[in-house]
């Protein structure tokens, strides 16, 4: 499989569940885009990358399109249970009406809410996060992560999303996906179950932080940058963190990557990298973007 100089490309018409229903068809899997995936300019690129992957492997999928509405996650975390349940029941009515059985989403917050909190309200679905889905595609050989950009030897550190990790015990799937890129994966001291939040969960995304001495995303970005440059051991605020240890080394930050799997982490880590004025050296990418670009299907 060699990359062609001028690859043929085709325009996607993303199917909606309503369109399919009008033709008497139903998708095998619903791609739940989520509000950030639909509206946030940065995360729209992730949604587009993931849609390309779904098309590329020929998945029988569809989106709800204009019929999708916020899962209610931020309302629930903020204590507005009433609003959460209104949103949840509206979405459940929509999805049950179409007979949806299986859902994939690129947002850990949507994933957690639909998977864990919708069943009590009458919404029972098989829900998978896109990191698990990508892992399956790679394991099944449907995606070779070859033919596009090479990440061989690039330094990548994965920032765990709380709602994927601690909330749902998914730690290995995103790492397996990154491992397939043949990159130089480095773990932050606070990773997996000990991962540090980006600062946006629990509806913090929509409010200013309480008074303190630092913003959480800065604390986390400092750790990520120090890990990528091999200097994490020197970080004062990591002293006493008894987790995974990495031997000190010296690396240029140029070309290294912070990988995320959550739209809020994406915003917080990107802002952190900008705050540290490292945006020309370090990029923040979602797993789906890395896979689509390594597979060479961006057009």
């Amino acid at each position, binding site marked *: *499989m060699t990359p062609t100089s001028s690859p043929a*490309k085709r325009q996607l018409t993303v199917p909606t569940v309503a369109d399919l229903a009008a033709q008497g068809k139903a998708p095998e899997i619903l791609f739940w885009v989520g509000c950030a995936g639909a*509206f946030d300019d940065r995360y729209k690129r992730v949604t587009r990358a993931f849609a390309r992957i779904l098309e590329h492997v020929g998945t029988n999928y569809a989106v709800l399109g204009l019929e999708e509405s916020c899962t209610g996650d*931020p309302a629930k975390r903020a204590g507005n249970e*009433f*609003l959460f349940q209104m949103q949840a029941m509206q979405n459940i009515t929509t999805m049950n009406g179409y007979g949806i059985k299986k859902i994939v989403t690129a947002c850990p917050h949507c994933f957690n809410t639909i998977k864990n909190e919708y069943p009590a309200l009458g919404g029972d679905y098989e829900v998978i996060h896109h990191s698990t889905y990508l892992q399956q595609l790679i394991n099944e050989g449907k*995606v070779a992560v070859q033919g596009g950009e090479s990440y061989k030897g690039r330094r990548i550190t994965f920032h765990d999303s709380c709602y994927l990790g601690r909330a749902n015990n998914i730690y290995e799937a995103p790492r397996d996906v990154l491992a397939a890129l043949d990159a130089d994966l480095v773990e932050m001291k606070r990773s997996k179950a000990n991962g540090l939040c980006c600062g946006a969960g629990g509806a913090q995304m929509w409010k200013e932080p309480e008074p303190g001495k630092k913003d959480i995303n800065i604390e986390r970005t400092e750790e990520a940058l120090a890990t990528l440059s091999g200097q994490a051991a020197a970080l004062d605020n990591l002293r006493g963190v008894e987790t995974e240890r990495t031997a000190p080394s010296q690396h240029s930050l140029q070309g290294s990557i912070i990988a995320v799997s959550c739209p809020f982490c994406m915003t917080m880590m990107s802002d952190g990298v900008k705050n540290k004025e490292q945006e020309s050296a370090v990029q923040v990418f979602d797993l789906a973007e890395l896979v689509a670009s390594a597979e060479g299907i961006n057009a």
Partner: protein
Amino acid sequence: MLQPILFALLLLAAFGLFTWQVRKIRANILVGRDRDMSGHFGERLNKTLLVAFGQQKMFKRLTPALLHLVVYVGFLVINIEVIEIIIDGLFGTHRFLSFLGPVYDALMAVNEVLAALVIVAVAAFWWRRNHHPPVQRFTGPELRMWPKLDANIILYIEVALMLALFFMNSADIKLHQLEGKELPGTFPVSQFLANLLPAGSETTLHVLERAGWWIHITGILLFLNYLPSSKHFHIIMAFPNVWYSRLVPQGQFSNVDSITHEVKAMMDPSYEVPAPATNPDGSALAPTPFGAKDVEDLPWTALLNAYSCTECGRCTSVCPANLTGKLLSPRKIIMDTRDRVEEKYNSPLIFHPNVYGPEAKHEPVTDLANATLLRGKVTPEELWACTTCNACVESCPVNINPLESIVEMRRFLVLEESAAPNSLNVMFSNIENNGAPWAFSPSDRLNWADDLYVAEKAPARA
């Protein structure tokens, strides 16, 4: 004959007082809202064996885990000797279990080694708390005054108990040497300490041995009755607390059933809301608020949590809000809950400790009659700093869940008081109006798919 009678009375008084205290604590815990935690026997047993008995989550931090393991195993094993002491005390026997022969030798030897190790571990614990600067997580506004003193008192008592054990054994050895008899048991530490004792008369040694014996058992019984006033109560409560752990994924927050009925009735007018629960005599129950304003609004498991907390601060030390200087400390929320339930309901305490003083509170409460858990102890500023990241829940060695109480109090603020920060109210109205937390038009929801192209390329394997 006098000694067994005195001993029986002491034992009766100690266990009676302890039972009296535990009953008050039980009543305090049951003040909380009902929550069905029955079933899942196998899973609960498994968790209790791993997390409580096996100390699984302690081993996330190796140094304190090993130190704690010494004290924990010491506590378990030395308790076997306490059984002997009780039998001896009641029936006037001496070293009743010595009929076990070589087993008794081993038991005494293990006891002595553990007791020595306990003293070493406790010294290390003391150093970690009291040297300058102490281990970070043993600081913080909630760990001043009584909680700080309590932690040290526990360490002093533990050392005193171990010393009394050695004192008792060495005096006994010396006494037997003088009498030319052999003392059953092997005493790797006390056999050396015995040489340090004055080579006085048999009577003196006899008094010393009895003194050691009485100090040891009286100390244990006093310590037992100190537990309900102390964070050290975790040595008992850790087990039921882990047994009643939440078994669902940590990301799953509780559902509010009363709201579910309301929303269902709104969406479907034919939906019949089930009749509200009534008192046994058929009268209506007092209405319960949404969320939690005070301790009785929390599920009883949250109050069980509060009595299981040993204030180790692992939760606070991994809390992203606390790490970056915000007011929120998950440990303080748990400690506040316990303080509040004892302030409002039963105080099981013999000593009524001051908590940690008014300095820790940023919004001083003037209206003491209404000093509920929310606002009286826990400020909204603390609650709104939480990212619901579950780091505190993950870190707790005995499966305490501070997050659940935080969310319950947020629910009260939002649903009963409409007291969310303004930016969150904007987010709520965006969801209501646009179906998204941001102010975007719902008709733009599929715009991401505009002008989307994919490179034509055969999949790796069809």
